[in-house]
């Protein structure tokens, strides 16, 4: 039925970061902050994989290894008041925003950690106050695009100079919500930036079975929005493309769709043997690991001292070990707590007085009849 995936033709992406350090205006601290977040996420996820295999954590485990440049690069561009939403593979973006690894680990262990109190997977997080991470419904793919349009609408109604940045996957471009959300955002020229990480698969499905277009950006004309397609494993290529999209949206010109080609280095989840992943494809992308590329660039081009990086690596390793200890030391949520916090208190919640007199007769009941619809006395009915 579907055209079978053509003999894969690999793009000609370089395996080195291109940017000239002198042309970039980053302090070493800024450069290392990005490296630390990427590195920490990588080590954290390697640990998660091990814990999963050991049966030490619950449920399924989904990892974002390979998405560190797209995640951190985009997160690094967020400004005060901006909000964003992440999908399954943006852990490094959380860390860049200051999310504590021990808190994430505690969630993976199902412990009593705010804000989810053990109700949601460690994979998901919503905390607008502390990190600008907006809630959405993490079940159905693309459900976050209408939500993103709603946050962007809120900014526009409040005349705030902010944007909403929504990470999304290639598979998540197929549901109707992707279309309805971007369509609404474009009609109202809302500051929504969709970052689409095309990591070669949606579970086991390759892009050519997912979409009739070569690039997700080819969808842009349907929405009349700004779009770009770029290499997602070169941190600075990501930053430049994302910046153009963000400036477009922040400038009041409507949504932007920035597509990054990258690779999901692990299975869809840790249970997935990836038998469907062509070896040459894997080889191509593993030679372009975003962290390795960045690390090489830092040492060889930006002349960052190796020792400094080694220390960051050590710190990351220790942080992850500490996170596991913290998680294990934390209590589980109390079973009784399961029914708490379902409804928020409201000003007019029922009080006993409300029941004092509930007799309110209906004098003239209205009863449908065969001819009801013909009664035009009170104007059109619809």
């Amino acid at each position, binding site marked *: 039925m579907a055209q079978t995936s053509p003999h894969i033709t690999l793009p000609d992406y370089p395996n080195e970061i291109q940017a000239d350090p002198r042309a970039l205006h980053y302090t070493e601290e800024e450069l290392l902050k990005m490296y630390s977040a990427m590195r920490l996420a990588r080590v954290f996820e390697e640990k998660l994989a091990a814990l999963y295999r050991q049966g030490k954590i619950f449920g399924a485990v989904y990892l974002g290894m390979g998405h560190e440049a797209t995640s951190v690069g985009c997160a690094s561009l967020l400004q005060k008041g901006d909000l964003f939403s992440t999908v399954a593979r943006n852990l490094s973006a959380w860390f860049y925003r200051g999310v504590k690894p021990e808190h994430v680990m505690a969630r993976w262990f199902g412990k009593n950690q705010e804000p989810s109190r053990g109700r949601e997977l460690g994979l*998901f997080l919503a905390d607008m106050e502390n990190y600008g991470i907006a809630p959405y419904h993490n079940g159905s793919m693309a459900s976050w695009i209408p939500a993103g349009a709603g946050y962007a609408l809120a900014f526009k109604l409040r005349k705030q100079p902010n944007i909403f940045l929504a990470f999304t996957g290639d598979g998540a471009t197929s549901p109707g919500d992707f279309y309805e959300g971007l369509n609404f955002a474009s009609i109202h020229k809302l500051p929504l930036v969709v970052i689409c990480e095309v990591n070669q698969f949606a579970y086991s499905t390759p892009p050519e079975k997912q979409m009739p277009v070569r690039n997700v950006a080819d969808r842009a004309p349907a929405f009349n929005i700004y779009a770009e397609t770029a290499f997602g494993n070169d941190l600075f290529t990501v930053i430049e493309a994302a910046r153009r999209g963000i400036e477009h949206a922040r400038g009041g010109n409507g949504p932007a769709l920035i597509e990054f080609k990258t690779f999901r280095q692990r299975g869809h989840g840790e249970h997935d043997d990836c038998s469907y992943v062509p070896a040459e494809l894997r080889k191509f992308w593993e030679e372009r690991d975003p962290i390795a590329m960045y690390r090489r660039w830092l040492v060889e081009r930006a002349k960052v001292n190796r020792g400094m990086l080694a220390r960051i690596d050590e710190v990351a390793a220790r942080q992850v070990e500490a996170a596991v200890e913290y998680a294990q030391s934390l209590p589980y949520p109390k079973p009784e707590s399961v029914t708490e916090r379902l409804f928020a208190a409201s000003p007019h919640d029922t009080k006993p007085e409300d029941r004092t007199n509930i007799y309110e007769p209906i004098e003239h009941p209205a009863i449908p009849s065969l001819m009801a619809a013909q009664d035009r006395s009170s104007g059109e009915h619809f």
Partner: protein
Amino acid sequence: MANITYLQAISSALREEMRRDPDVFIIGEDIGMFGGAFKITQGFLEEFGPERVIDTPISESGFVGAACAAATVGFRPVVEFQFIDFIACALDQIVNYAAKCYYRWGIQMPVVFRGPTGGGIHAGPYHSQNPEAWFAHTPGLKVVLPSTAKDAKGLLIASIRDNNPVIYLENKFLYRHYREEVPDEEFITPIGVAALRTIGSDLSIISYGGAVHLCVEAARVLEREGASVEVVDLRSLAPLDKEALLESVKKTSRALIVHEANLTAGFGAEIAALIAEEAFEYLDAPVMRVAALDVPVPFSPPLEMAMLPSVDKILAAARKLLAY
């Protein structure tokens, strides 16, 4: 006090809340210049402007998701469905985003989903449905169904001020077929308190929404036949006023449940189950239900009338129970 229709009561509640609270906005199809398919928001665009009266493309899932999001950052959106039937297109966002957000993250989502439900106007299978059971079965949603103009206003104001997602279901037959005296000033009808439409001691008829009118009419006929009937109007299904309905049944020892939605797995089953568990000792007769037949709502009037609950069907069941 003014004598206004059920529809006008909904408009006035919306208008007053929008005047009072700048964070309230309305969003939906054709609600702006056109004033909505049923004219509930007539004049709103002129008064509140396009930033608070937002016309949308035909994208229920899209604008529901957007409204839910805006509700988590301080807005109080009121979403209009042109007909409630189309809420099926947005079900995922409602049951998975709106219903679960506060439970998962402790982030409040004060959003109201409102639209016309019900039949009796020969609008056929796609403009006559009553989906309240889907939502009453979904933890995290409040479900409100006014049966009078006064409640339509008081409950809508309460729904807009509620800090949770509220499904506010209007009966489109009542829009222009029911009118009564409604206070001009703002007032609140708390969500979760039933009303007694008649008071009686021989039989409890428990209902909600448009069907309450059939029950009141039936109660009158039965009074003439010498029976004393109490009509309990639940007004909301979640939260549910269990006390009121159980108290009535414990008093009368006979329960008849009536709703317009089709019978099987309708909300009436939940009421019957509660009675069968918590008022069992008091029952002198089986718990009966009168509801629409289990088929789509047909267009042709004789079929539609045969399908919908009616005063006669209620009378037949009530007489059985009273004779039991």
